[in-house]
């Protein structure tokens, strides 16, 4: 006796049936004009400086490499529908742990004096362990990622201060510093590394099932599970990779600066989120591309280097930086055309 009475819905003109230009592609490119404008502004401010490779590589790109790896890590985690505030502390902690195991006590080491080659692997392992621990708390105990990683943000920074005694760790082995310091074919190794990792990220997330799984998990975790994806394992792996990328960021930054300051990375997480979101990554998961994230990093980097090039007064630097970031956020909202959540 129950009958459905709407036979003609199929003939109704559905708006979505219009042939559509490749929406995803266009949106991806949305920030490219903005980046070009920023480049142009840089040239207008001081063409002689801006157009030298030394400036572009040394003052614009190289200083963004560590941040860019944090953004890559955060992008992966956000796409999977999670959140990580602790990346900046992981970046600080990982090389510190490796360094105190290697350095002699005179240079604030623990006295274990492990060989120098352990520095990079130990850093990466520390990063992986932090990510694994975050993942464990979030997945096994079903705690909010925001909250877990907020607690870890504070705890890891505290461990960093405790282990290093608040000292900068210097006189590190050159092999450890070279990644962030040396160049190859005229381009800083750090830029090569960041570049390669971003390309790998784009290919895996664009063309591999394993990468597409991140979007599925972030878009609808129940549906992903129903489609046969091991959602917990995917999420956990992403946290581990995120931790390792943060550790690598720490290694690059150490080489770039020549020593590990006790506050390395402190306060960076806000910029990481700003870059990711400007780049079109959604805080709700399942949306955004690695290319977009890269554009976000480049935009932030260009904004800051242009402000420096302009010699903006230090007292107003932050305010102007903030307003431009706000504008960029609004712009990226308008170009993607959708309400944010």
């Amino acid at each position: 006796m129950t009958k459905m009475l709407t036979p003609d819905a199929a003939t109704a003109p559905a708006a979505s049936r219009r042939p559509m230009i490749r929406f995803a592609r266009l949106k991806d490119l949305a920030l490219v004009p903005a980046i070009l404008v920023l480049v142009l502004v840089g040239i207008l401010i001081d063409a002689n400086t801006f157009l030298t490779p030394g400036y572009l590589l040394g003052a614009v790109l190289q200083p963004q490499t560590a941040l860019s790896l944090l953004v890559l890590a955060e992008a992966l985690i956000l796409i999977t529908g999670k959140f990580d505030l602790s990346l900046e502390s992981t970046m600080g902690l990982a090389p510190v742990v490796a360094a105190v195991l290697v350095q002699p006590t005179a240079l604030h080491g623990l006295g274990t004096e492990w060989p120098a080659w352990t520095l990079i692997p130990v850093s990466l392992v520390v990063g992986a362990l932090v990510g694994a621990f975050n993942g464990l708390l979030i997945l096994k105990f079903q705690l909010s990622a925001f909250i877990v990683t907020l607690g870890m943000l504070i705890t890891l920074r505290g461990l960093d201060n405790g282990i290093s005694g608040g000292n900068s760790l210097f006189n590190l082995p050159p092999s450890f510093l070279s990644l962030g310091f040396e160049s190859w074919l005229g381009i800083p190794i750090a830029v090569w590394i960041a570049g390669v990792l971003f390309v790998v990220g784009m290919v895996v997330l664009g063309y591999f099932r394993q990468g597409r799984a991140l979007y599925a998990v972030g878009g609808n975790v129940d549906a992903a599970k129903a489609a046969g994806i091991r959602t917990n394992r995917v999420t956990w792996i992403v946290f581990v990779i995120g931790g390792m990328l943060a550790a690598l960021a720490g290694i690059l930054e150490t080489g770039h600066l020549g020593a590990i300051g006790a506050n390395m990375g402190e306060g960076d997480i806000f910029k990481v989120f700003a870059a990711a979101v400007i780049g079109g990554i959604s805080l709700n998961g399942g949306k955004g591309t690695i290319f977009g994230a890269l554009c976000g990093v480049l935009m932030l980097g260009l904004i800051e280097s242009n402000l420096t090039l302009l010699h903006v007064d230090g007292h107003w630097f932050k305010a102007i930086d903030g307003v431009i970031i706000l504008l960029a956020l609004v712009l990226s909202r308008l170009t993607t055309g959708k309400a944010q959540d």
Partner: protein
Amino acid sequence: QSTNTGSPNGSAAGANAPVGVDFPRADSDFWNSYIKYVPQFAKDLGVNMMQPTNSQNKVESLVANVQTLQSQGAKAIVMAPQDTGAIATTLQRLEQQKIPVVTVDTRPDQGKVYMVVRADNKAYGEKACKFLGDKLGGKGKVVEFQGALSSINGRDRSEAFKACMTQNYPGITVFEEPTDWEGAKASAALQTRLTQNPDIKGIYMQAGGVFLAPTLQVLKSTSHLLPASDPNHVFVVSNDGIPQEYASIRKGEIDATVSQPADLYAKWALFYAKAALEGKTFQPGRTDHDSTIVDVGNGNLEDQLAAPLVTKDNVDDKALWGNQIGQ
């Protein structure tokens, strides 16, 4: 781009070559004074100073700023790295490119600089220790607001204060309070200690700019703000030498401060930058401006400027920079 036609004894790009200056932060009274003095002295000394940059408390920004200044033609750099380790690579690069560096306020842990312009921060801790030790007659309880232990200045002041107390005044109990240079933390710690030990007799605050007002508020609200003649007076030694500290000394609210010479920091930093461009060199020993140049190792020289202890007796000295600005 930084081709250098240096003279044999170093880098002599000419006295008129541009000097790049980076300020470390814009949110502290002490550094704001320094920021005001720098262009003033640049004019006086005839230094061709570029528009300064500001690294907003971030050593990464300092590194990028230096790179920018260099790209824009700086032939000498004046900087104040608050993180003394994480500047090593930059110094190494600048050395390779024969750009002399003068650091202010801090001495880098590693790397070559032309001159360090600084006051002896260990001496600050010692001066404060001696002042309190004498006033308290070698016994009693003292609270110390430590600066951030991740900064060399915080560590130097803390270590020197501790060493001096242990050695000279074993009868004095010191409560070390970590504050991260934050007034709110000092306030809560002082409140706790005063409740636990109402007989606290002395306070050493490592930065007057941040700790002065909160300390006075707590002393006031716990009725510990008493004239020096009162037997329960709490002796307060501060550090920095900003005008507010002098006003408090005049009122008898605090007893002393170390004047960290913001004006001389600016003046001598620029002086040495220019000297570097002119190809001059310096030797350890007394200087003509009431200071000593010390060889601090690996070929680095440090001009240790005088940082006088200011008490009621000399607080009105016109020569003190805190008496020259603002008021």
